């Protein structure tokens, strides 16, 4: 077994942060504004084909997941405003991604439907070739 009795330096650091630095975190969570901006832009991107919105939204979701993990590892050091930005950006990104994905799936089904209809039509009979 490892030495459980003596706390490691990282542990002490974390305890210190949790006890003393919690309400007065100053640092911004990295990428929190980027997540917000990408989340907002994903509405504009969901218009044409939905692909742009899908890409932007997924990037924003991945970034927000990483940033959230950083925040959870060390909650005291980051400011509350950037946490709010991060959460708002995450919600916007989720909505944008869902809508873009829906639109994209709709388009794919639409195109597949017309492709099957066009290929399955009895063109020979219609055009009069016997």
């Amino acid at each position, binding site marked *: 077994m490892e030495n459980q009795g003596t706390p490691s330096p990282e542990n002490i650091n974390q305890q210190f942060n949790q006890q003393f630095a919690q309400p007065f975190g100053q640092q911004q969570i990295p990428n929190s*504004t980027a997540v*917000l*901006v990408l*989340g*907002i832009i994903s*509405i*504009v991107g*969901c*218009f*044409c*084909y939905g692909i742009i919105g899908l890409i932007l939204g997924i990037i924003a979701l991945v970034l927000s997941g990483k940033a959230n993990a950083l925040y959870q590892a060390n909650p005291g050091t980051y400011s509350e*405003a950037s946490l*709010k*930005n991060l*959460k*708002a950006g995450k*919600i*916007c990104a989720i*909505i*944008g991604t869902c*809508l873009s994905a829906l*639109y994209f799936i709709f388009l794919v089904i*639409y195109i597949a439907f017309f492709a099957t209809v066009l290929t399955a039509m009895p063109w020979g009979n219609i055009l009069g070739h016997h």
Partner: protein
Amino acid sequence: MPCYYKELSGIDCPGCGMQRSFIELLQGDFISSFKMYPALLPVLFTLGLTASHLFFNFKKGAAFIKYSFIVTISIVTISYISKLLITVNP
């Protein structure tokens, strides 16, 4: 900027009419801009709110951005669906 989707399939995409509506807005014609594309003003409002929040850091800015985003995207969706229905059976 042409919409390739519309050229390909003949159906409007959710962003169609935005540029025409923006031009109408620049000419000062609010009513015809709204009729052309109802979601333009909310979209511009949300983008402006985000930019100003990033510069000035409002206290409840993030929450306002969230709600304004939800309202905007529902307006976009509703206007797109109603436009589709109107063009399918006029």
